[in-house]
């Protein structure tokens, strides 16, 4: 992570055109090769070697650039060790020195994560387990240990939580409020919390429980424990559940629990499940419609705010899309989604299935739509760049944009591509400037398409708030400046992309599905 930060700083050094500072893993060497930065020495590097590869602009002395980057490395080392509670090299020592600890955040590699989580649970701490690749048997065992000790084990694979207003993991700076969220979907919680914030609502607590909590083996145990906490919390008036649709057995179990153990209104967004209402329980198909439902349940003023700030009209989308598609060549027919957020990518796949028929993916909705090679798109494709294939030995794309920048340039060369859709996830833990790190590549992609006599429509959704460290407004402006068309929600962006790529021929299907998708 420190090296990634040094890489970003190195790119800003005067005279440096491109730079990579990374360990010599095979994934990093592959990326350097794609960037034209893999030298003979770089090829010979091993996982234990630090590679510093730099391309300098004309009239810049390589030695000067290298010296500047080396001093960046030195300053990173010197700044190690922190304020607050300090830095320790063992859990026991940290516990001895930080009195009153009540939450641990664990982001070790999967192999080490279970042991650390167990040690922390035994010490009486609630645990937010960000790490994934934890064996399911370990998850079941750790959750039993947590339950026995009256503790939370959020995760494994818990990307986001909002506890007492503090963002844990990848989380946005959003207003506190009366809506309690339990999410088995990290960017799902981020999208819901920023949309609630945008319409003047807020989150009392947001618990990320990790996607495998709702697997058949785990059975939604932590989701139900968190719902019980929120039901008993005086600061929570409305409950929201956000998850990719679990299997039918787990859904029945969780919703039966909701019926027995809760009394507050519930908005359940099991992505893709048909919208309906049963008494105080309201099902929503998308993140967008779940927040709209929560706004309507909160007050007419919040519902109105949602319509004004997040909801776009069908007519408005149709008319602007006509303008964007008018510059496309006949052969430009496909949508390419390059996502950093897994749940946002899943939401777009669901929407495209409803309105376009299907889309290929490395994380597809059905087996026949699996990309044979995740590095190569086919027809309509939505890629989750946070998936293991792209992150093995690399930082997550929400932190490091390298893989997405290269993929965007690759898509721009494909003359069948009409629209590229991108998410920009802001918040604590995320990259310092997600828009800025992509802006140059977006401009280059559009320029490359133009050089080939084509227009390339690039759409974006910024999942962020005004209070985020990166600032929603600042990020939006950076993107608009390079010609990105922005949408207030991911769902709206996916619908607009379908309009543009199809030249409006899917309008009837969208009209038919509109209420379920964004109503």
């Amino acid at each position, binding site marked *: *992570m420190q090296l990634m930060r040094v890489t970003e700083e190195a790119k800003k050094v005067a005279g440096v055109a491109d730079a990579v500072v990374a360990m010599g893993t095979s994934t990093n060497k592959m990326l350097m090769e794609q960037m034209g930065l893999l030298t003979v020495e770089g090829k010979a590097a091993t996982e234990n070697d630090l590679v510093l590869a730099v391309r300098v602009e004309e009239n810049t002395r390589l030695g000067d650039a290298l010296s500047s980057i080396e001093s960046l490395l030195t300053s990173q080392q010197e700044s190690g060790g*922190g*304020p*607050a*509670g*300090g*830095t*320790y*090299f*063992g*859990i*026991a*020592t*940290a*516990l001895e*020195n*930080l*009195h*009153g*600890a*009540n*939450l*641990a*955040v*664990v*982001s*070790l590699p999967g*192999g*080490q994560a279970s*042991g*650390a989580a167990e*040690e*922390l649970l035994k010490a*009486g701490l*609630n645990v937010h387990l*960000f790490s994934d690749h934890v064996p399911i048997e370990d998850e079941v065992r750790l959750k039993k240990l*947590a*339950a026995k*000790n*009256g*503790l*939370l084990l959020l995760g494994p694979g818990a990307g986001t939580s909002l*506890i*007492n207003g*503090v*963002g*844990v*993991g990848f989380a946005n700076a959003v207003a506190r409020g009366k809506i309690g969220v339990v999410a088995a979907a990290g960017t799902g919680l981020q999208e819901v919390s920023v949309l609630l914030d945008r319409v003047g609502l807020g989150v009392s*607590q947001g618990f990320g429980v990790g996607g495998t909590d709702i697997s058949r083996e785990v059975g939604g145990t932590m989701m139900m*424990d*968190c719902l*019980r*906490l929120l039901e*008993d*919390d005086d*600061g929570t008036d409305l409950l929201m559940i956000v998850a990719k649709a679990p299997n039918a057995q787990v859904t029945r179990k969780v919703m039966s629990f909701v019926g027995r153990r809760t009394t507050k209104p519930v908005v359940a967004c099991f992505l893709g499940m048909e919208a309906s209402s049963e008494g105080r329980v309201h099902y929503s198909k998308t993140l967008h419609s779940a927040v709209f439902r929560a706004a309507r349940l909160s007050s007419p003023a919040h519902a109105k705010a949602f319509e004004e700030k997040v909801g776009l009209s069908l007519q408005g989308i149709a008319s602007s899309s006509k303008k964007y598609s008018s510059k496309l060549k006949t052969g430009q027919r496909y949508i390419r989604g390059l996502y950093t957020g897994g749940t946002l990518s899943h939401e777009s796949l669901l929407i495209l299935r409803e309105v376009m028929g299907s889309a290929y993916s490395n994380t597809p909705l059905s087996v026949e739509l699996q990309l044979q090679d995740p590095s190569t798109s086919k027809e309509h494709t939505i890629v989750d760049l946070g998936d293991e294939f792209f992150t093995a030995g690399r930082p997550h794309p929400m*932190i490091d944009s390298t893989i997405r920048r290269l993929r965007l340039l690759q898509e721009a060369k494909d003359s069948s591509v009409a629209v590229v859709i991108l998410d920009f996830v802001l918040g*604590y*833990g995320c990259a310092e400037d997600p828009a800025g790190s992509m802006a140059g590549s977006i401009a280059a992609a559009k320029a490359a398409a133009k050089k080939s006599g084509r227009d390339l429509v690039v759409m974006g959704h910024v999942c962020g708030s005004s209070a985020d*460290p990166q600032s929603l407004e600042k990020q939006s402006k950076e993107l608009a400046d390079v010609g990105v068309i922005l949408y207030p929600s991911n769902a709206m962006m996916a619908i607009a992309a379908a309009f543009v790529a199809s030249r409006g021929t899917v309008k009837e299907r969208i009209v038919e599905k509109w209420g379920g998708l964004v109503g």
Partner: protein
Amino acid sequence: MVESKAARLIGAELVVINVGLDIFYQSMVRQKVRVAQVSMPAGPGLEKRLSAALDKIL
């Protein structure tokens, strides 16, 4: 059953032990949360042995 320590977490001041990525430690500092960073380059078992060995030396 998650009452007790889990229920007491709600509304309490968060005091966090961050084990792993420095970026999450930094985000806690930025949010003015009391936090300690645990860096564990090796397996936890080895860390315990190292820690015990260091305790003896120091």
